[in-house]
């Protein structure tokens, strides 16, 4: 009963927000509930019967969360999870409200949350997690996270909330150091790649500091990656899975989800069920997806931080004829993208977004030929899509998160992730 009035207010606010913006989600109901019932978020997150699982780190947490939820559901576990955009406290409370009954209770055996590494430390204050999974440390959005030490510190605070198990990427030296400092009684589980897999990557794994040697002993290891196929072994079983897209980072995400599911489910865990659930995750193209808009097949590629930028740029077929590259206001300071290399793009038809000039400057120094710079994204999209279809390949749009939202809105596509 304690939260019923706050829940009612939150519901009314949500209703009002929906009237204003049909179909849209909103963080406002969460903001208001957090204000009038400050204990609600903590208490609800800590209250799931089989506990709370948190996935955090610089890169790969969305995919890993999605994979973990799929594995748990395949084991008939009722899972509450947050949409990846709702990983700060208002959004999280709003997401809980979506599912809550009138007293504020949220159904589900277990909650799996993707947690932003910056806000997570704050959101997690006073919240008890059962399992915390940490993906990697990469310097991200330099104006938010000044250096790797700071990111590692924030992840350490999130990990400190784990009561049972911390699952770490054993190839990430920062996380390995962090694993050495967990409270007594908290179990450490590991995932990572084999030496063969590491050797097969042209630019390494992209972590700020990769451990000099692959981990030995217990843990979940990516043994091989071939195209979209991968094999994962946990010391007892070895399974073959199909990844949602090519790329070692997807295999690492799958290993993380596998290791976490094993920690959550214990004896109930089945390697075969996990492998089947992982393989059934729908394919994605590049980082994003392939859609048909205005009669054209278009590939969307989302770039968020330097590591994903490099991986996703590398995944674009060299010689792709029609590219639109849009950098939005989410990139306040583009400096941290400069160490990446986009030379393989060769030529970009239009550079757009509110940071179009910064993006053009960077691409030009990579040796990319730029046909046109058009800061007005709506106009750039209209012109890009109005041009005849390319002779080979598909029209490809590379965008940062803000430019993605604007692109989707302009093209009338639902679900800005």
């Amino acid at each position, binding site marked *: 009963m304690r939260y019923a009035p706050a829940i009612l207010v939150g519901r009314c606010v949500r209703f009002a927000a929906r009237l204003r913006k049909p179909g849209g989600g909103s963080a406002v109901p969460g903001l208001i509930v957090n204000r009038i019932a400050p204990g609600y978020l903590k208490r609800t997150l800590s209250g799931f019967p089989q506990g709370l699982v948190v996935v955090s780190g610089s890169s790969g947490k969305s995919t890993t969360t999605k994979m973990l939820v799929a594995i748990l559901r395949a084991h008939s576990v009722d899972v509450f999870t947050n949409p990846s955009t709702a990983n700060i406290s208002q959004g999280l409370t709003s997401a809980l409200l979506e599912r809550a009954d009138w007293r504020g209770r949220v159904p589900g055996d277990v909650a799996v949350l993707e947690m932003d590494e910056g806000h997570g430390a704050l959101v997690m204050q006073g919240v008890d997690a059962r399992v915390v999974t940490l993906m990697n440390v990469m310097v991200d959005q330099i*104006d938010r996270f000044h250096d790797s030490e700071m990111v590692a510190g924030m992840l350490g605070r999130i990990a400190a909330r784990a009561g049972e198990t911390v699952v770490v990427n054993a190839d990430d030296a920062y996380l390995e150091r962090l694993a050495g400092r967990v409270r007594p009684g908290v179990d450490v589980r590991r995932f990572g790649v084999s030496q063969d897999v590491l050797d097969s990557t042209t630019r390494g794994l992209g972590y700020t500091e990769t451990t000099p040697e692959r981990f030995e002993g217990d843990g979940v290891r990516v043994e091989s990656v071939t195209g979209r196929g991968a094999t994962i072994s946990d010391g007892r079983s070895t399974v073959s899975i199909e990844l949602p897209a090519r790329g070692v980072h997807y295999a690492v995400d799958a290993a993380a989800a596998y290791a976490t599911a094993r920690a959550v489910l214990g004896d109930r865990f089945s390697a075969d069920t996990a492998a089947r659930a992982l393989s059934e995750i729908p394919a994605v193209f590049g980082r994003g997806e392939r859609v048909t808009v205005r009669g054209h097949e278009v590939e969307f590629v989302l770039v968020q931080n330097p590591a994903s930028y490099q991986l996703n740029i590398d995944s674009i077929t060299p010689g792709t004829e029609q590219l639109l590259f849009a950098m939005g206001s989410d990139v306040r300071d583009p400096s941290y993208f400069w160490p990446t290399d986009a030379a393989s793009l060769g030529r970009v038809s239009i550079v757009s977004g*509110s940071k179009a000039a910064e993006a053009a*400057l960077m691409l030009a120094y990579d040796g990319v030929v*730029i046909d046109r710079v058009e800061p007005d994204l709506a106009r750039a999209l209209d012109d890009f899509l109005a041009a005849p279809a390319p002779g080979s390949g598909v029209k490809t749009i590379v965008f940062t998160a803000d430019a993605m939202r604007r692109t989707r809105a302009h093209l009338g596509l639902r679900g800005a992730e």
Partner: protein
Amino acid sequence: MTLTIVSLLPGLQNTNGDAENAAVLAARAKWAALAVQLVAVESHADLPDRVDAVVLGSGSDASLDSSRAVLLTMHDELRRWATEGVPMLAVGTGWELLSWGIERPDGTGIEGLGIVPGRAVPRRSRITGDLVVASPRFGILVGFENHSRDYVGAEGSPLGRVRVGSGNGRDSAQEGVVMGNVVGTHLHGPVLAKNPALADDLLGSAAARAGVEYRPGAQASVVDGYAEAAREAQLSRARAAASAMNP
């Protein structure tokens, strides 16, 4: 005559992409049809025989000691380059390591290499944001700053006056230090791409020392058009933010 541009410690000192400024110099030299090579130097053994320009970027505080240890192995070379007029750009902690020293909040310090005057001292909190500097030698410089220390002792030869941002701090209203062709600055990231006048000044000095002439190539004017647009966008945003703060 091949110009040799050295990127010093790009492994440790490239947190904000500052080491990429060496590639910017190399690209501009190439556009000017000059022969040029870019050499990444991680240890003394990597040092080429001849050095025409040097870029040392910023790293994390955790790497200060390891970077200093490597820089000390080339202390003589650094001193000689500075004295002989080899253009050097040092950014953030890279610049701080070339100063007299770095003071920590707990009173301990790191002795610098003493190549440029001044020292880095703690500030209350980290400053991040736009930094706009009016330099008598290089014009208006536009970029970003992100540092947790101020800089004192550069009052005699700063890079320029701060128009927007904090710069050296401590109410100096100054940013950076210049000694001959050595430039130390908090302007991080692609400062030379964003400020072609600074890039061309350094490149011009490098070329003159090497006995060749540097005249920016045609491609430079195309790319500098993007730089100009990026500068304008940042300047108008920075001015708006500054006037909102000090109406």
